[in-house]
């Protein structure tokens, strides 16, 4: 049974990578979810798939290996949390950027090396807990996607 699952894992991971390389942000999130499916199955598969009893001591042995199961259970829940976070990030990124094309995101990283860097902040900058006047000029109208 292991080689079959090895192939299935390959299909899942391959699909995940293909989705991950898409330009649409939601496909990137789906891609990560697919890679997670593949990896979860892989952890269980490499422990060996034998037709033994589940690791419940109320049943009669021999039992399958319980440790990878515990690891994967953790991984599933963490995977859920990451997917939720990524979904929210995708949503916010879309709302902020006005489009969902990841290739057009992130231009801000390639910043001007000679621009002010925050290490030598200007004196007029006030701390977050300093009483300040409400910002008036920076308010902008909501951007709507075309």
């Amino acid at each position, binding site marked *: *049974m292991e*080689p079959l699952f*090895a192939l*299935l*894992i*390959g*299909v*899942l*991971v*391959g*699909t995940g*990578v293909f989705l991950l*390389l*898409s*330009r*649409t942000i*939601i*496909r990137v999130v*789906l891609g990560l*979810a*697919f890679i997670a499916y593949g990896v*979860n199955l892989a952890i*269980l*598969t490499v422990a*060996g798939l034998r*037709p033994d009893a*589940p*690791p419940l*001591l109320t049943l009669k042995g021999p*039992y*399958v290996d*319980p*440790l990878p*199961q515990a690891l*994967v*259970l*953790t991984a*599933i829940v*963490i995977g*859920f*949390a*990451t*997917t*939720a976070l990524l979904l*929210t990030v995708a949503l*916010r990124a*879309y709302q902020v950027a006005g489009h969902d*094309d*990841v*290739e057009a995101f992130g231009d801000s*990283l390639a910043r001007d*090396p*000679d621009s002010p860097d925050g*290490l030598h*902040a200007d004196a007029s*900058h006030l*701390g977050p807990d300093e009483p300040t006047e409400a910002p008036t000029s*920076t*308010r902008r109208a*909501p951007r709507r996607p075309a």
Partner: protein
Amino acid sequence: MGLMTAAVALPFLMAALCAALAGRLGRATGVLAALAFVPALLLASRTGGETLSETTRWVPDLGLNLVFRGDGFSLMFAVLIGVIGTLASLYSVTYLSDRERFGRFYPYLLAFGGSMLGLVLSDNLAALFAFWEMTSVTSFLLIGLWHTRSSARDGAVKAFLISALGGVALLAAVAMLGLAGGSAQLSQLDLDAVRASPLFVPALLLTVLAAATKSAQLPFHLWLPTAMEAPTPVSAFLHSATMVKAGVLLVAKFGLIFSVSPLWSGLLVPLGLATMVWGAWLALRQNDLKALLAYSTVSQLGLLVSLYGVADAEGRFAATTHLLNHAAFKAALFFVVGIIDHETGTRDVRRLSGLRRALPVTFVVAVLAALSMAGLPPLGGFLSKELFYETMWHQGPLFLAVAVAGGALTFAYSARLLRVFTGELSAPKVPHEAGAGLTVPAALLAGAALLMGLWPALTETLTRTAQEALAFASYGGHIRWWHGVTPALLGTLVTWALGAALVWQAPAAQRLQERLTPRWNANLSYVLILTLLNTLASRVTARTQGLALPDQLRLSLGASALIGGYAVWQAPQVLPRLGTVPLEALPVAALLVAGAVGVALSRNRLTAVVLTGLTGFGSAVSFLLMRAPDLALTQLLVETVTVILFLLVFRFLPGVRDLPRTRGRLGLDLLLSAAAAAGATLLVMASLRFLAPPISPYYLLNSYKEGGGKNVVNVILVDFRGFDTLGEITVVAVVALAVGALVRLGRPGQAPPEVDAEQLAAPAPRRKP
């Protein structure tokens, strides 16, 4: 809990308490804070006895224990920290303004006090390093306390960067010592093994680097003057009396290990003397009283480093005496400058004069402390300066000459400090004598400086408490007023003569200073290095990380594919036999493949999410096949919730259509996906061979006996590997908070757009399915 552990732990506990109560207590928090140092003060009762030792076990297997070792020197230092800490806390009560954030200031101060006490008392090398770094961090926070000033931020960053450099050096040094000496405890190192080890010289050099950064030796002295952006009580506590002496402490304690090498003295004595002279030279040209004191501290630290660097009984005796004297007079002077600043509103020497009438008590205190600093009788500074000259004379006449030059400059800047009290009264605002809250701490310290001068036997007794710990019990000399006509006495006389000349010819000296100002200084190099690093980092990031996300991923995946491909090419693959494919697995396989292919091709949101769910349910069924009922249940539920989340998000997202990939990239993506698929398959196949027996029988055998449960997976989760689960649920909780924050917050740094009433009133358009 032993007294030493309490002395270290209480400041941290009180820091939390002060943070909680500061809102209610206001400035009175300082009185509460002062209580935190009571156990440290009580340690005074233990000095002179045998060495104390207290161990709190943490991870014994890794040699990570909190071991406190109270030898004479450590206890002396701890009591010193306790005294100055108490006085600084009490002084702050009156000094700080009403608008100060007490809930920050006192916790930082106490956390520093606890770290510093931990640093001097710790015997464990790892803990020593940890406390060392904690003093750097707390110092950073205290320098940057008034973070709305850019100079405070710059000063904090500079101090932190430089002491972090030293921290890294110290980490490497203690790691080497631990490896070479075969113990994680300083007192149990095998010294012969350390000295024979090839790690000896690197460890020595790194220790010198660590000490030089922390104690502001050349060329790292530049952080100390800018650290004066901190409130004055902090300057008195951290940047004159305690933290900057951590490097001196390191030189003193590690000198017992390294002093066999001529390299140790050969590096430290010239370094210390050069720092002493250069610091005093720079102090003489300062107009800001606090900057003057900062450079004077640099100079005095150089003196201490050179004395401990000599690393013989005489040098250590002299250094320990001066350590005590310096703590007394320098903290007193900082308090005096604080009073002047508080009462007149300026610290500029040029704008102040004749303060002696307005501030008579402060004047007396300042005179006592400054004369002690200048090394005049009958004050403590005189006695230790004599010892200093004596030691340097034994090193050679040249050393004495440099020391005398430094001493003369010290004399001159002490006089410059006192100039604000003489002449006609002039100040930006009419000064009044400060209240007892400010003068008493200063007066106590000045009194101590006087007492140590008037009563040499007391000074000697205090110094000798450290004699066992620092191995100078054999030193036969004594602290006396009159040693006879010695080279040291001659040196003192020359110092006074030169110093008096400098004071007398002050304008000429000032012109000379201006002419000798070097074009280049350490601060410029610091700024240059920092700018270069920033530019380099930005350029590298822009070049390598500036790609669009998919291209960046293609780069990483391509690299992994190359490495993985090479591994496959090199390693002969032993594929297991195909085995039997059970019939019940085939529908699952079909489900998984159909889901995967379907999602990749789908252009419709609902289809995509349903197909993803299908794959998820497929893997849940696979878990059942793999005899994992817990996993199947969890996957099923997670899938349900995830699908719901996807649907919720899809209300606002524009679908899952695959935007056309740019030319050539589709082929590359297909290739990469195929490589990933092949890689995953091969990896799983290759991992099927067991190289070691599985560890899981332990869990099966002990699940019921140890954990009392029959569901082994659950017992592993909540008992055997409970710590992992704890970490995991913390992650889940943090993610929940992050999602909440992401949804609620507008764009960073920008107010969310106004929503007009019209939009609120109208029902939101709902999507038709």
